[in-house]
């Protein structure tokens, strides 16, 4: 790969969320020189804000088979490469109404098809495991959901990449991309720590900015089909359950409750915006979290609120796709703009979810390495990650 007068190729990753971090880790293991720039703290975009659910994929088993399979595979993998970063308490899909019960057969079938293990529980059994559930539940299905710390788990990818030689530069804002003759050759950045501007050159620039993908792509004169789709989340005081609680139905608002230390996080809702920096926290959406959440766990209704916030998912679709955002796929996409837009040296990785960060990075790293003429295979499936504290090492 490198030797003699050749220097290893330099990849500049724009975006320090889970995807950027996992990509930095993957490429570094393959011998690529990696620099990552993130305008704030790592995971300060969408990654840190999600409720921390390690998806079993069951939620997508009926309507989005591709996502479901990705989820269950990555779910099992992450437990092996990031041990000690999950509350491995499993999850329950709880059926309350007759409509929920009607959903049960296709749910079980979908899980079977996609390789997601399930265990059907009688109400009494479910209530023994989770005493705070709605006592009127009709059925509960146990699945291998788990809870993660939405910041600390991805931070392990950063810690490992950094220890292996990647330069991970937080508080560096990309002002513009260097585009000349149809080739992206670097970025103009401002280091917020010194206030100074400079230029970073690279062989390939990867756009891993999630809901900001459109904004960054525009700097290279290309368009990506990403619509920032925010949703509201509500954290209430009290660890009301140990397991992740899901509603047994096709996706809807407020149908997941995830325990986070001494809080319970209820999520989420969905709408579409144009500016991922200006999301708002609509009060009626927050109320919906309380209403829907208390159907699953009645104690939610009276529990004091700790925080209500919004996070924008990066949903892939074409510009004309449905307005609510839910209909857009949750799978991910690597776009080589040399192929799609005849702009060389620029790749976008986008879409996806917190659970699939490693898998997304593998696909993107494969594409990037192909472009660079590197045939070193991916090593992230077998590499156990350093603890999150190593990310702060001096």
């Amino acid at each position: 790969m490198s030797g003699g007068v050749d220097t290893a190729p330099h990849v500049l990753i724009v975006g320090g969320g889970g995807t950027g971090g996992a990509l930095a880790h993957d490429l570094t293991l393959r011998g690529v020189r990696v620099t990552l720039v993130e305008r704030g703290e790592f995971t300060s975009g969408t990654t840190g804000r999600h409720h921390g659910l390690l998806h079993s994929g069951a939620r997508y088993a009926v309507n989005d088979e591709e996502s479901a399979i990705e989820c269950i595979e990555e779910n099992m993998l992450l437990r092996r490469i990031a041990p000690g970063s999950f509350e491995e308490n499993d999850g329950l899909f709880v059926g309350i109404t007759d409509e929920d019960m009607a959903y049960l057969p296709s749910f079980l079938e979908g899980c079977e098809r996609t390789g997601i293990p399930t265990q059907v529980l009688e109400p009494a059994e479910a209530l023994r495991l989770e005493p705070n559930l709605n006592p009127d539940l009709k059925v509960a299905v146990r699945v291998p959901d788990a809870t993660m710390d939405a910041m600390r788990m991805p931070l392990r990818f950063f810690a490992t990449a950094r220890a292996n030689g990647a330069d991970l530069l937080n508080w560096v804002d990309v002002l513009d991309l260097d585009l000349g003759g149809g080739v992206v050759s670097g970025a103009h950045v401002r280091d917020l720590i010194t206030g100074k501007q400079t230029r970073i050159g690279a062989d390939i620039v990867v756009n891993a900015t999630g809901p900001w993908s459109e904004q960054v792509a525009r700097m290279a004169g290309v368009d990506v089909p990403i619509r920032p789709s925010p949703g509201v989340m509500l954290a209430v005081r009290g660890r009301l359950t140990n397991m992740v609680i899901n509603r047994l139905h096709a996706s809807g608002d407020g149908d997941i409750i995830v325990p986070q230390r001494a809080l319970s996080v209820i999520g989420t809702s969905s709408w579409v915006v144009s500016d991922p920096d200006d999301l708002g926290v609509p009060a009626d959406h927050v109320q919906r979290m309380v209403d829907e959440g208390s159907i699953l766990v009645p104690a939610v209704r009276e529990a004091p609120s700790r925080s209500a916030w919004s996070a924008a998912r990066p949903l892939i679709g074409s510009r004309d796709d449905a307005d609510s955002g839910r209909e857009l796929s949750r799978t991910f996409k690597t776009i080589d703009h040399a192929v799609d837009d005849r702009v060389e040296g620029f790749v976008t990785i986008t879409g996806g979810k917190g659970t699939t960060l490693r898998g997304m990075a593998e696909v993107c790293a494969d594409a990037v390495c192909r472009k660079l003429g590197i045939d070193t295979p991916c090593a992230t499936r077998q590499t156990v990650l350093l603890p999150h504290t190593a990310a702060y090492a001096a």
Partner: protein
Amino acid sequence: MTTETTSTRRLRVHRFKRGDDAPHVEEFDVPMGEDATVLEALRWIQLHGDPSLGLRHSCFHASCGTCGVRVNGRERLACVTKIADFSGTITVDPIANLPVLLDVVVDMATFFAHYPDPHPIVRESGFLPEAAVADDLDGHERYEDCIECGLCLSACPVAATDDSYVGPAALAYAQRLLEEPRDGVDRNALLDWADQDAGAWRCHAAFECTEACPSDVRPAQRIMSLRKELRHRRSEQGREVPEQAAGEEAT
């Protein structure tokens, strides 16, 4: 953050870039709804006032511990601190006793360097004691309460004048590992680590750490427990010494 603006608040924000001679203060007038948090106000400044403002945040719900700042001198998590709780001008400063990285963000490297190794962060849940555990699980797990926010170190009057003090967070963490032993943790090594001058003995019982903690860790009480353990160990070792010496000579 509600979308309607109720009032305009003045924020006085600590600014510093590497290369500056000294920090300075900048004032911003920020239009905010009644439910707005300090973090939302700071982000408004970033988006509409000064894009070079450095901020640290991630989870928005007091779980990541990254948004610690001092609001009117008191240690708070910006994401759950309401603007409405303060009247007049609101001062925002970085938390104390750590080097400033930029503006209101500190460099957490020393904070983490104080911790003993290893650093497991998952523990037994203990919540819902009446809950049964599924057959194939050993028990319910959860994360440790401590979110590593550094508010305790900032509030500690000893840390204010002694940078070698390992600090309440690290000591509270060590006490948790002794209280609930986990794989890979060497009890004696942990007690040795706590038994240093800059360890459990450096605390002067001001209890500011417990006051500042947003996660109910109660570090001061845990340091007192640690001291009790260390004293027990010392008196045990004291009694053992003559027998030990004889034993060693025999082998």
